[in-house]
């Protein structure tokens, strides 16, 4: 029993990390007024970048840095297009998601000659704690993610900088009149959001599974978006939300393994074979239901998603 709980918590902490990183980044971006639905694509690119760099240099830490840089760059490009060129932010996000798979596959082929996935690359060590004959593994980036979230919350709510950022997302005209360069803030924060999300992608390769596969991000970018709304744009709540959504995924994996071990009545035996797919669907359905229930009580930044056009 204890072993199961420890395993679940261990797995949940891992699955929550990319969600938390991407959500926190997106909260910062959205508080400034830009909506970035290209998180999925940025994660993919962060992942493939970290795989390539880790493979070439053998050093996973450098891989993380490069992935963060890539995420930052993409974020800055999206921020520039959205803030200065008044582009349609949703459509840009759709485009980024699409082309990310294209780029990733091309790189995959160029470096490894494969189409589906890479062989293993160097990983970062994780912290392992023994509890009752099971390992509770805590990845360093997980801890980093929590720290980043708490810091982001502090900056947003308790500092002058945070007030200025929030002004951009609530009323950009007023913010501009108060001496804030709204477009610059939006550009920067979209870049920072991309940086966190790139790290999220790198985490998956270099601190979790240890290789890149084309389908690995599997919609996490969108779950992160759900978490942003769920947390009411509050990074502290995002930690809770990321854990909950991560738990859904962990639980589904856990269940799918458990049914292999436990004796099942005849009519449920399909769960061991084709029914495994149902476990795959579970996290998404659970996420959707959670969002539906919670959506009534949240407060969106007023100017979110609307391009700021100077009169």
């Amino acid at each position, binding site marked *: 029993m204890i072993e199961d709980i420890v395993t679940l918590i261990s797995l949940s902490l891992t699955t929550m990390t990319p969600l938390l990183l991407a959500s926190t980044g997106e909260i910062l971006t959205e508080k400034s007024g830009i909506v970035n639905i290209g998180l999925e694509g940025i994660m993919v690119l962060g992942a493939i970048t970290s795989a390539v760099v880790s493979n070439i240099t053998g050093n996973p830490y450098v891989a993380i840095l490069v992935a963060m840089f890539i995420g930052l760059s993409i974020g800055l490009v999206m921020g520039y297009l959205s803030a200065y060129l008044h582009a349609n932010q949703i459509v840009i996000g759709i485009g980024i998601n*699409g082309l990310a798979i*294209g780029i990733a596959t091309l790189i995959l082929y160029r470096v490894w000659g494969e189409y589906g996935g890479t062989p293993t690359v160097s990983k970062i060590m994780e912290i392992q704690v023994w509890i009752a004959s099971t390992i509770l593994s805590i990845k360093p980036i997980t801890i980093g993610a929590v720290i980043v979230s708490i810091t982001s919350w502090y900056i947003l709510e308790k500092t002058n900088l945070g007030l200025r950022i929030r002004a951009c997302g609530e009323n950009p005209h007023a913010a501009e009149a108060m001496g804030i360069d709204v477009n610059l803030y939006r550009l920067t924060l979209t870049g920072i959001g991309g940086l966190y999300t790139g790290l999220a992608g790198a985490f998956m390769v270099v601190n979790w599974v240890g290789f890149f596969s084309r389908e690995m991000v599997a*919609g996490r970018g969108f779950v992160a978006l759900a978490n942003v709304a769920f947390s009411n744009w509050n990074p502290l709540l995002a930690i809770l939300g990321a854990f909950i959504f991560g738990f859904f995924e962990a639980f589904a994996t856990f269940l799918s393994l458990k049914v292999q071990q436990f004796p099942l009545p005849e009519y449920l035996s399909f769960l061991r074979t084709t029914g495994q797919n149902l476990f795959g669907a579970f996290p998404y359905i659970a996420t*959707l239901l959670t969002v*539906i229930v919670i959506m009534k009580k949240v407060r969106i930044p007023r100017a979110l998603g609307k391009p700021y056009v100077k009169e």
Partner: protein
Amino acid sequence: MNLICKLIEDIKSRKRDYLLNILEISISITISLVITILLMVFMRYSVETALSAYSILFSHGFTNIPYLLTRSTPLILTALAFLLPSLTGLFNIGGEGQFYLGAITSLVIAYYTGSAILAIITGGLAGGFLGLLLAILRVYKNVNEVVSAVMINRALYYILIFIISTYLADPIIPHQSISVPRSATLPIMHIHGLRVNCGFIVALLMSMCVAYIYYKTNLGFALRASGLNPKAAALAGFNIKRLMLISFIIGGGMAGMGGAVHVLSVIHNIDVMLIGLYGYGFLGIGASLLGRNNPLGVIFSSLFISGLIIGGQWIEVRLGLPHQLADLIVGIIIVSLAIPFSYHYIKLTLKRYRR
């Protein structure tokens, strides 16, 4: 004759807008092709490889007309699926899931009734139902339709794999569903010596239906007005919520029909990994944007994008490069189309530098 005169008058007064649209489309396609080459070079592919890839793309992508028409059929329908809700300001990302559901529904109905028409209709209804679900969540529960669509798409993917492999598996051929019975398949017709798949005719018909609604009915007018000026549309008595729901029902229905037509006319069964159905939803979004959200324009943009995809497959066969190259080009086209009035902006920046 009178109709043509009116059409010409229509185009004349909107001449500037049409030219602008064509210019924007050309710019985005060009930008996309250029950036793709740059990216490939950056990824350490040689320039010759990139250029030969392009030559294959354009020489083989568009030359096999029957195949081109067949490939673009589902795309036209998924493009319509994105187009209609976009008029009300919403984004139907659920085209993929609506496509799948339409496909599997039509498969089941065709298998048990042997009727193609019934299968197409039920496929459309299934897709419409899914679209309505997205719209209800958005209108009444304020759930962002992009997030809900992706969640449903992904969940549906797994659920459908489960259903196919458990209940609809072909008893003889592994990894594949039961097949559409002969009586329900859509035939290939011969028009003017050209082999045209019946499915393409269906897609064309649907596109023209949507165009008729778009231009000639109150509903289409209401949709267009809401997209251009929601406040004015409200003053006119158009209920934006109702329009959102209707647009998603019809849009979802289009995608569902796309899935149905694809199964009935081309693949005739669904493989266990849904590979035969994969990707049309996303490409439909690109086709809709490239067709400037116009019901007749999406026919041409679907043909173009299908040509790119076919070309991509040829590149993979000839050069071994992954066919995702075509996805990349489409993705960049989408991004560059997101920038409004790119032509105006270029003009303004040039003016500023001249001063």
